[in-house]
């Protein structure tokens, strides 16, 4: 598990980016937390800068839309899913289960 931030730093409607070789975006949607790949599968852009509506995030660059629960694109122009990650809150701290985290020693909370 990678530490993301304190829960108080991830308010409803907010998002945080966890930097690394494969950056992860963590979202708070009405109190529920979701984590997906931060990089859009369409073109290089940061989904943590994206527009969240219901459980969908829209990429700020070309409006590609992904379901935060499944990582699946919901329409054009993206065709490939982003990966999803398990999120946990322990003692007021947000953690993400980043796979292959051992490959990446430089991860730190954004």
């Amino acid at each position, binding site marked *: 598990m990678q530490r993301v931030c304190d829960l108080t730093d991830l308010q409803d409607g907010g998002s945080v980016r966890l930097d690394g070789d494969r950056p992860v975006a963590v979202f708070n949607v009405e109190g529920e937390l979701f984590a997906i790949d931060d990089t859009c599968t369409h*073109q290089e852009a940061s989904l943590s800068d994206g*527009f969240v509506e219901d459980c969908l995030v829209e990429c*700020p660059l*070309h409006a590609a839309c992904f379901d935060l629960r499944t990582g699946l694109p919901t329409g*054009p122009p993206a065709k490939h899913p982003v990966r999803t990650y398990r999120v946990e809150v322990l003692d007021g701290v947000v953690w993400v289960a980043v796979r292959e985290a051992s490959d990446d020693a430089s991860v730190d909370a954004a």
Partner: protein
Amino acid sequence: MSGGDPLRSVVVVGASLAGLSAARALRADGYDGAITLVGEEPHLPYDRPPLSKELLVGSVTPADIALTDADDDALHLDWRLGRRATALVPARGAVVLDDGEELAADGVVLATGARARRLAVADGRTGVHVLRTLDDALALRDDLLGGCRLVVVGGGFIGAEVASSARARGCDVTVVEALDTPLAGPLGPQMGAVVAALHGDHGVRLLTGTGVAAVHGSPRVDAVELEDGTRLPADVVVVGVGASPDLGWLAGSGVAVRGGVVTDARCRTSVPRVVAAGDCAASEGLDGGDPTRTEHWTHALEQPAVAVAALLRGPAAPAYAGVPYFWSEQYGVRIQFAGVRHAGDEVRVVEGDPDARSFVAVYGRDGLVSGVLGVDQPRVFTRLRRELRNRARDLAASA
């Protein structure tokens, strides 16, 4: 195209983003009858925004911008590509194509988009381009050789993006804008000037307040002459003076048109079981204002679902309540706009600095924000766009 029987055959006229979105929405809404998509271009639907950007600089190929994928096979769509609809005959429930084929239709979605406007004085010469279709973009890409002299007529978003892409390819670029300030329509004069300053920042000449008097050269263009007498040598000319829908084919159909296909807020036209969406539709808003056309990508993506719901369920379907949104990329700078700008709006910078080309400005009056512009500020922009969306939802819920 009348009566209350369930629909069995829907013809979608237009096979770009709005047409494809309509077809997908029909299936998502449970419609299991026939769907035929008619597209004038020979290509399957593709994404247009990259045409003036990544495709021109060569960082994506036509295959990269296809909108359909294997999942669409399950939609069982019947394509008529490279074919143009020439008539809509509601009395016969028919859409007539240019080769004489008549498609039976008990429901029709008009999603024909818009055509690039041309400049009569420039027509008929090689080296003169418009940019609307994939074929337009490929022809322009092949013509934009490094070091060539490009004159872009029109300083709107397409013109500015073409200038940016051509500059990246090493062309010598001049943008000519008839208005005193480019982008004054969508962004207002103050912010239009700020965004247009990107041209100068990147070595592109911007000439404003002058139209094109003549285009010289035969068969290939060699110069553009402006109304003020300036003569600009040119190897390539791009005319980016907007787009307008092709409505002539609807004459006699009973479908009311006024600059676009007139619809209510549910995308219904004046003819039962004929709906319209995307660039070709001039739709009433929830506020009862004049029907307006919206040429935004997000609109062409979202509005067809409203049109399709109205086609299947009539007045019980919800009205379109999306907040307008568009973006542009020029010289590596990301420009985003949400909401609407009204003439006379107050404009306030709420984040960053226009001189640094990184800022957020809000538009409105009496303290009420109706529009947001972001320049290389996606996070703050997104937060304000969300506030606009939340307010629109509250309004729609209380309507």
